[in-house]
């Protein structure tokens, strides 16, 4: 093994309420391709953000040694200066600009005060040659496919004389050929002396390309494996190998055989991304059942939920949707709500709650007509309803007239839940229902879910926390790259099996 180009020593990073990384050590040898794997939320991106200066020096403890020197990186430009470049999952190119403008954006080639465009175009062409991309540098980035955009990003990094290239899930949105091209390019760059760190969920690809693999779990380094000692099975075991704490209420209740929701040959095409996001999805949900949708971030679970719930993002849909045996087509979330479907969103602050309004207004929002007569809201009845949910869901707030922005995450989540329970749905879709909330509130939400299915409600739970999916679901569907990669019953589902299907 070569001398290390990068050493990160005992890195600890805390966010309010969570320890994202605790005492992580990470070493990358010069000239290797080093892969970083781990579940959602294991701390991979956080670690890379420290390395690239997004989380500046001083906001974490520990030491970053790059090229033999201790680095106090406090911005992305700092890290670029020493030769570290990071390429994110969401590409950071400007679509309306040309390829050459993008490549030299931020470090333009200048003659005095003016940009030397001729030189820029010439050098951009050379960079493109290095990444084996045969296009005219004068085309606009928006006219390129995702795979080519990815390569432009790499060309941009190379133009900054990069020594360490970090790729955050570079192949997650690429098709097979583009992925293969990218991996080949990484090998070429390795020949040219560029060291790479790649974060990936696709374990086959990781095993194929990596020289060394580091596994993170719950903010800690659990293993560093060399190419010759690694197997997929070993990796998965390291990734998920935690004890399932028994915080899940007992499953005493059996769902009935009556199917309340069924989706057949469901396809969705994203109009702005210009690609298919759901492919031939089939699943069903029975009365009184909790089904879990497991999968990696970006696998298409939220899109699936939205496409069923009135399709507010305007995907082009194909396929059939049955609610209680009747074929349905929803044009607006309104239609879905009227049919008895409720959707608690993943991002409660972004599109779940109205933060500047109070608890009662948020709870009644989706069903105001219930407490109104001829269009006039009964304000007193509203307070009463809100107080009922405050008590039943144990929402901790001094009064229902408190703004929801002042509530903690767990209590905000309960307000979201209350809002949708007030609609009295038959089918409840919960998207990441316990993300970012503490264990106590989690348990309360699990208990509420169990009570609801006992009363005959059916629940779809989308979750990136495997133990939660396994602990709560009667059946688990695994979603991967917009497809249903598998279906497991509660009895047969294990973390290893789910992870294997999800990373395929």
């Amino acid at each position, binding site marked *: 093994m070569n001398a290390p180009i990068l050493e990160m020593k005992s890195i600890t990073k805390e966010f309010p309420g969570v320890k994202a990384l605790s005492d992580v050590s990470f070493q990358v040898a010069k000239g290797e391709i080093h892969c970083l794997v781990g579940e959602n939320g294991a701390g991979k991106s956080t670690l890379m953000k420290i390395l690239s200066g997004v989380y500046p020096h001083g906001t974490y403890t520990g030491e970053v040694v790059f090229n033999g020197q201790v680095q106090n990186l406090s911005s992305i430009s700092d890290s670029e200066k020493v030769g570290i470049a990071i390429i994110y999952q969401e590409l950071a190119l400007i679509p309306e600009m040309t390829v050459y403008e993008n490549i030299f954006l931020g470090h333009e080639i200048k003659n005095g005060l003016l940009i030397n465009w001729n030189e820029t175009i010439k050098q951009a062409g050379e960079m493109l040659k290095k990444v084996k991309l045969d296009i005219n540098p004068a085309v606009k980035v928006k006219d390129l496919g995702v795979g080519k955009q990815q390569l432009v990003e790499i060309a941009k990094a190379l133009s900054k004389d990069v020594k360490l290239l970090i790729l955050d899930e570079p192949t997650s949105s690429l098709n097979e050929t583009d992925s293969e091209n990218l991996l080949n390019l990484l090998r070429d760059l390795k020949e040219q002396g560029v060291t790479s760190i790649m974060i990936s969920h696709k374990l086959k690809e990781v095993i194929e390309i990596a020289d060394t693999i580091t596994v993170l779990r719950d903010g800690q380094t659990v293993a560093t494996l060399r190419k010759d000692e690694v197997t997929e099975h070993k990796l998965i075991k390291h990734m998920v190998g935690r004890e399932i704490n028994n915080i899940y209420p007992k499953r005493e209740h059996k769902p009935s055989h009556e199917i309340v929701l069924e989706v057949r040959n469901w396809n969705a095409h994203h109009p702005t991304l210009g690609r298919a996001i759901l492919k031939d999805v089939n699943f069903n949900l029975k009365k009184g059942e909790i089904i879990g949708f497991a999968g990696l971030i970006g696998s298409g679970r939220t899109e699936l939920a939205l496409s069923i*719930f*009135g399709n*507010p993002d305007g995907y082009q849909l194909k396929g059939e949707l049955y609610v209680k045996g009747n074929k349905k087509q929803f044009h*607006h*979330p*309104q239609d*879905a*709500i*009227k049919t008895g479907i409720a*959707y608690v*969103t993943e991002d409660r602050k*972004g*599109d*779940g*709650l*109205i*933060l*500047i*309004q109070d608890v009662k*207004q948020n709870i009644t*929002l*989706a069903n*105001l*007509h219930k407490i*109104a007569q001829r*269009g*006039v*809201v009964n*304000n*007193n009845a509203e*307070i*009463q309803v809100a107080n009922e949910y405050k008590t039943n869901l144990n929402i901790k707030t001094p009064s229902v007239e408190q*703004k929801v*922005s002042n509530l903690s995450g767990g209590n905000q989540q309960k307000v979201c839940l209350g*809002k949708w329970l007030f609609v009295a749905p038959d089918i409840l879709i919960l998207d990441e229902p316990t993300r970012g909330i503490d264990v106590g509130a989690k348990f309360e939400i699990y208990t509420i879910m169990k009570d609801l299915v006992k009363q005959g409600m059916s629940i779809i739970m989308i979750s990136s926390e495997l133990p939660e999916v396994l602990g709560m679901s009667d059946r688990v569907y695994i979603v991967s790259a917009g497809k249903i990669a598998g279906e497991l019953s509660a009895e047969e589902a294990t973390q290893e099996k789910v992870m294997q299907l999800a990373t395929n």
Partner: protein
Amino acid sequence: MTFFENAKKVLQQNIREYGMYIALFVIMVFFTITTDGTFISSRNIVNLINQTGYIAVLAVGMTLIIIIRQIDLSVGFLAGFLGAIAAIAMSDPRVVANGLNLPIYAVIPLTLCLGIMAGLVTGFLVAQMKIPSFVASLAGWLIYRGAILVVTESTGTIIIANDAFNAIGNGFIPDIPDIGFLPGVHKLTLILGVVAVILLVINELNDRRKKQSYNFEVLPTEIFALKLIFLAAIIGGITWILAGYQGLSWTAVIVLVVTLIYNFVMSQTVLGRHIYAIGGNPDAAELSGISVKKLIYVVFGSMGMLSALSGILFASRLQSATTTAGTLFELDAIAAAYVGGVSAAGGVGKVVGSIIGALVMTSLTSGMNLMGIGISYQYIVRGAVLAAAVIFDVTTRGKN
């Protein structure tokens, strides 16, 4: 808790809301002192209200527009244009010569309908074509400005020869016959003032009783009584001032009715709550089953109707339609809404606040005119007040 502690608590919790009432009060006292009482004279107050009218109705509509995170720049010239249309329909010499002139009871609804249609066009551009409202309404600004010139090109200023129409901006409600009691005072205005106070008290008591029947917290009795006395005193005071001149003007009646209706819709109905929800978080509103598109139409349609009303008030006040009618009304309306506490970020604001905001702005103009301060300094002062109002709004937000 003692009375004063209670009072302090209520005041602290509602400082944002009471802030602009206090500001208006301070401004009025200031000008009353500097003009030796001329400012607060019955005649001046009536003038002030009539001058505020055509901006106030625009400010009401603009409040809703800003609440849903949009803007409408076209309202000023739309008002001017529709005022001209109304004038032509009643009094254009060519129209009259052909006997095609319409009576006032046809002209007013027609103008309001045209306003709604114009508003819906802007709404269509914003909701359906997804054009930013700034651009869509800027296009309207240009178009209506041109349209006024087109329709007034051949005639220039159109004099309106319709007494009923002209009374809207200049007339007063009739009085009951003199019975030798309180000579020189407008008695119907006084009676209406007393009725308003009685209705207010009954309404507040009812509301309080309902709250208590739900076992909700209500204001402590002394504070509640104080609030009632305070509100009654304000209504009484204004009534007395107005009754001392010629009574309630038709403009004041129209503005009052518009304010009451819009205030009711925004604070008490499902529609109003949905509008606030869209302003607070459009994505969350959409996912809660609210059709954002539909409400954009509703809000812009209402804005168009109020623009037409503003045009009618203004044309009536001048008793004519001019080529420059409506110039800068939109900015006065926007300023009034911001001074009145509407949040630029959307989702927050009250119709009554914008009316107060409009009153603040016109009071400044009126008071400074009386003091003999030049127009140049008037603009500077009004600009500073606008900035101060928004700074106050931003710094007190989130402290509750």
